[in-house]
């Protein structure tokens, strides 16, 4: 495999395999965990295979085209910074997989947990390996979504759901800002590729959009990395299972923000605005959260605020913007990930063993779990910045950078003072963690008796603490090469000279460290008055503020929806028509003014009369709709006039169809009328009448004008092809039918499928539908109970074969003369429905095929089967063939395979109409039966 493929394989493996644990969870817990470990392990292996080239100073690029027109490609980049993060993500991920196996209760099948964890890991790898910023954003959002699922893992707990929702709202909102920032950045540089953007720093900084870009991107960064004032989601996300916290809040999720800060540093850094925004936010977060951490009683709460504080430290380092401070920032990313992951895991062990994480109750653990205690104490020492630990090295670099910073020449004591105070607070909260949990007397009222955790649950902590010590004592031998490539990739320029060593001589940073240590011990010694002081402070809960805002937004959204969506169909329809009207008016006046002149199709008296009938019929039906039977008849008249219009205007097929459908519609309406209550609807209010009349008049007038405009516009038909090819290509002279069954056969197939669905849906709706049928009509006359009139039934029975013959004839000639499957189907169904009407359900039922579903399927199968048959001849779907056949008596007939298709259409149409109408008719039997019982 070449290196491009290797690079692409890293996220590809992770994304391809993330469901593996879920699929394997039936096999067993151990297998599920092994699968997760295998996926993490393979990603780590892939990263390690590429590592030597990166250490040699190269960076890898790989690209697959995705949406090049939008500047979005699947392009990946592995350089020092990406390598560092990939190693953290895969390495710590592997440890978390092992740890979670022991941490999560044995009743948990683990599949869901590991799958979401892997999805999250995949997205994180995507973020740190993206070369394209849009791609990075896609992965960024996946990290938000999957971390939501992880935090809400115990979704039956209210706290988990709230915490997850808050994390999602804050980081998701930041993601939107980031999207805007990235789009602007792409607009300025003309590319979303990092290699272009990183080398266009001067151009970006000089651009007037620089400030908006920086602010938007920083919003994304600060929300993700929980910087003040967006920090509040992180402590609430502590409701996640501890393995999740160990992963998300040490090495990955929150580090995505500072990763982006480091990544875009060459493009955006180096200005006053950057300095003030980034270092200011970092400094406030650093001190504020360190002070808050001291007062947390929950171990994870303390660690959460400490995490925020360390993230503030890293942000501050990137903000200080001396080249060495950036190196220190990258270094602290590594160190913090290592010691914080081990501390979270240790906190999880304590929680797991004691059943609580409250430091007021968990005391004296050193005696009960000496090994875990030792490990946690070392990690906490690293967090406090005690010499010999890795945390000390980066913290001392930080102290060094605060001294004599060029931006602070006038007040050069301020920055070191802030740093020292923050350092002292870190010492104090670390001391509190160690002293409260492991010493400080005996535990108080624990749910269970704690002891050392299982051997392998402790293993990840041991490994991480060993790393703390190794890095802390032998930095040159361990972390230096990685730090060098990562820092070089961050700076995108040669590294400043620096030396990683435990002892730099007796200098200012060392003095600050000692001061911080002494100050921390002093603060912790004063804890009793401090806690009392803190206890009387008004409690400020960002969470409740957030919840308030959240509820406010939700209720505002509800109100808006309630205004628009009142649940009234009448209102919807009115709004819909009004909206369409506005669109229509806008289109009418902004469209091309092409009224040339109206063509001169002369109208005759018949046409006048017909249109008069139509107008009278429709207006009459509208005015008299309360007299329902009359209205139905008037609508029937209108339908007949429409059919006549089709006759006059050279559309015989349409006329036939309209005639047949009209019959069906009338029968349908009458059936429905029978069941609908006859009592009169109350009169509409005047204002509503005015509204509806206005809408109706504008709609009608508008469509009239549009029709006139359309008819007056120059016209060129697009049907030339169909007219030319109908006979040679389709084998029929009725072009409309040939279009339906041949040229546009695929459309027709779709349409008969819709019809079949109508039949199925109607059947489902009519199933077990019981309606109470009124005994009397509106005027108090009893409904006729007479059997079906003899005359009608006798007349109709012999009519059936005649009508069927007609429909066969119409069907057969359809390809060449007006007719075809649709029309023939409608005629047949009318003939059958008339049998129901005249002879009653029982009579007709006995003589009809029972299973409508079979007929529907048969029709659809015929139509699609003849289409698929053309595959046998290596032709596209629905290719037709035709030829001449000599039939006895009838003579030469042109047969086309489209006929079979038409037969399918015929079957479907008949079945649909008969199913719907006879189904409606049969309702009356059930209604009567119901009445007899009651």
């Amino acid at each position, binding site marked *: 495999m070449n290196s491009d493929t290797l690079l692409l394989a890293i996220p590809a493996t992770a994304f391809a395999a993330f469901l593996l644990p879920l699929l394997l969870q039936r096999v067993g817990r151990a297998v599920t965990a092994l699968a997760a470990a295998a996926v993490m392990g393979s990603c780590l292996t892939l990263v390690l295979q590429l590592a030597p080239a990166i250490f040699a100073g190269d960076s890898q690029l790989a690209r697959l085209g995705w949406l090049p027109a939008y500047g979005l490609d699947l392009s990946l980049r592995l350089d020092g910074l990406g390598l560092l993060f990939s190693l953290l993500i895969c390495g710590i991920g592997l440890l978390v997989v092992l740890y979670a196996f022991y941490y999560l209760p044995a009743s948990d099948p683990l599949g869901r947990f590991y799958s979401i964890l892997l999805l999250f890991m995949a997205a994180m790898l995507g973020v740190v390996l993206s070369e394209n910023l849009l791609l990075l954003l896609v992965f960024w959002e996946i990290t938000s979504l999957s971390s939501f699922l992880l935090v809400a893992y115990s979704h039956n707990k209210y706290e988990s759901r709230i915490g997850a929702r808050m994390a999602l709202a804050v980081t998701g909102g930041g993601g939107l800002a980031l999207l805007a920032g990235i789009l602007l950045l792409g607009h300025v540089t003309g590319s979303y590729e990092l290699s272009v953007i990183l080398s266009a720093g001067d151009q970006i900084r000089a651009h007037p959009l620089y400030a908006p870009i920086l602010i938007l991107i920083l919003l994304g960064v600060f929300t993700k990395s929980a910087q003040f004032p967006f920090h509040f989601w992180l402590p609430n996300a502590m409701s996640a299972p501890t393995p999740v916290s160990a992963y998300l809040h040490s090495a990955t999720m929150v580090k995505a923000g500072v990763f982006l800060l480091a990544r875009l540093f060459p493009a955006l850094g180096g200005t006053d605005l950057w300095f003030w925004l980034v270092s200011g936010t970092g400094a406030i977060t650093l001190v504020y959260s360190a002070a808050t951490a001291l007062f947390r009683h929950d171990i994870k709460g303390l660690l959460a605020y400490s995490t925020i504080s360390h993230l503030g430290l890293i942000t501050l380092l990137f903000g200080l913007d001396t080249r060495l401070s950036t190196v220190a920032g990258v270094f602290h990313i590594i160190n913090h990930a290592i010691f914080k992951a081990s501390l979270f895991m240790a906190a999880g062990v304590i929680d797991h063993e004691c059943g609580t994480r409250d430091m007021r109750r968990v005391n004296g653990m050193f005696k009960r779990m000496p090994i875990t205690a030792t490990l946690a104490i070392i990690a906490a020492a690293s967090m406090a910045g005690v010499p010999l630990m890795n945390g000390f090295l980066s913290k001392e670099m930080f102290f060094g950078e605060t001294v004599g910073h060029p931006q602070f020449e006038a007040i050069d004591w301020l920055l070191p003072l802030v740093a020292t105070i923050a350092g002292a607070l870190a010492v104090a909260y670390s001391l509190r963690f160690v002293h409260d949990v492991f010493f400080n007397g005996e535990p108080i009222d624990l749910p269970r008796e704690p002891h050392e955790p299982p051997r392998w649950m402790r293993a990840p902590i041991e490994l991480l603490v060993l790393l703390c010590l190794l890095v802390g004592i032998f930095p040159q031998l361990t972390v230096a090469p990685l730090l060098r490539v990562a820092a070089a990739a961050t700076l995108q320029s040669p590294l400043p000279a620096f030396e990683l060593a435990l002892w730099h001589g007796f200098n200012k940073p060392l003095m600050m460290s000692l001061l911080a240590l002494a100050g921390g011990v002093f603060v912790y010694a004063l804890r009793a008055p401090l806690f009392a002081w803190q206890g009387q402070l008004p409690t400020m809960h960002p969470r409740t503020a957030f919840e308030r805002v959240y509820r406010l937004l939700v209720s505002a959204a509800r109100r808006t929806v309630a205004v628009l969506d009142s649940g009234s169909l009448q209102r919807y329809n009115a709004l819909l028509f009004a909206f369409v009207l506005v669109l229509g008016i806008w289109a009418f006046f902004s469209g091309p003014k092409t009224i040339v002149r*109206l063509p001169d*199709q002369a109208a005759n008296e018949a046409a006048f009369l017909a249109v008069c009938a139509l107008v009278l019929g429709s207006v009459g039906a509208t005015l008299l709709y309360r007299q*329902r039977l009359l209205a139905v008849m008037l609508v029937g008249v209108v339908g007949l006039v429409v059919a006549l219009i089709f006759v006059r205007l050279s559309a015989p097929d349409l006329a036939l169809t309209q005639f047949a459908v009209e019959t069906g519609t009338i029968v349908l309406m009458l059936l429905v009328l029978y069941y609908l209550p006859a009592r009169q609807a109350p009169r509409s209010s005047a204002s509503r009448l005015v509204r509806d009349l206005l809408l109706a008049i504008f709609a*009608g007038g508008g469509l009239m004008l549009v029709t006139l405009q359309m008819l007056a516009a120059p016209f060129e038909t697009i049907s030339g092809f169909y*007219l030319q090819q109908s006979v040679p290509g389709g084998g029929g002279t009725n072009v409309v039918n040939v*279009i339906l069954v041949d040229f546009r056969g695929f459309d027709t197939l779709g349409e008969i499928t819709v019809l079949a669905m109508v039949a199925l849906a109607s059947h489902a709706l009519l199933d077990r539908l019981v309606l109470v049928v009124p005994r009397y009509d509106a005027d108090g006359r009893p409904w006729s109970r007479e059997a079906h009139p003899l005359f009608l039934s006798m007349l109709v029975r012999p009519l059936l074969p005649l009508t069927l013959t007609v429909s066969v004839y119409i069907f057969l000639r359809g390809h060449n003369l007006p007719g075809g499957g649709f029309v023939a189907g409608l005629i047949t169904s009318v003939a059958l429905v008339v049998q129901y009407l005249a002879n009653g359900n029982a009579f007709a039922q006995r003589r009809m095929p029972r299973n409508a579903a079979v007929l529907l399927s048969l029709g659809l199968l015929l139509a699609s089967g003849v289409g698929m048959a053309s595959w046998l001849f290596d032709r596209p779907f629905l290719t037709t063939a035709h030829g001449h056949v000599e039939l006895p008596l009838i003579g030469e007939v042109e047969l086309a395979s489209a006929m079979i298709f038409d037969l399918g259409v015929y079957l479907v149409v008949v079945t649909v109409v008969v199913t719907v109408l006879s189904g409606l008719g049969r309702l009356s039997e059930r209604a009567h039966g119901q009445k007899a019982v009651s």
Partner: protein
Amino acid sequence: MEVLLSIAIGVLTACGVFLILRSRTFPVLLGLTLLSYAVNLFLFASGRLRVDAPPLIRAGASYADPLPQALVLTAIVIGFGMTAYLAILALRALSESGADHVDTEQER
């Protein structure tokens, strides 16, 4: 002819819209039927109006545009299917809620 057809389409639309905005299911059904006539005629008119020119191939004839006709033919049948489905839906609603009002909220 064109003007007459335009008027017919306009009247059908106006009546259809007004009826669709009524509060009971039955006039809504009537309105839907009228509106679908209007829409079918409009679609049909987009192929322009021709007298005595059916699209049946024969020597020396001129033809009306067959494409809108094919579209309208299926539209008529599907329109019937839609109306039938709505009618049955209305009956189902009647049996579930005991009223033939289109809304749960009682507007007039």
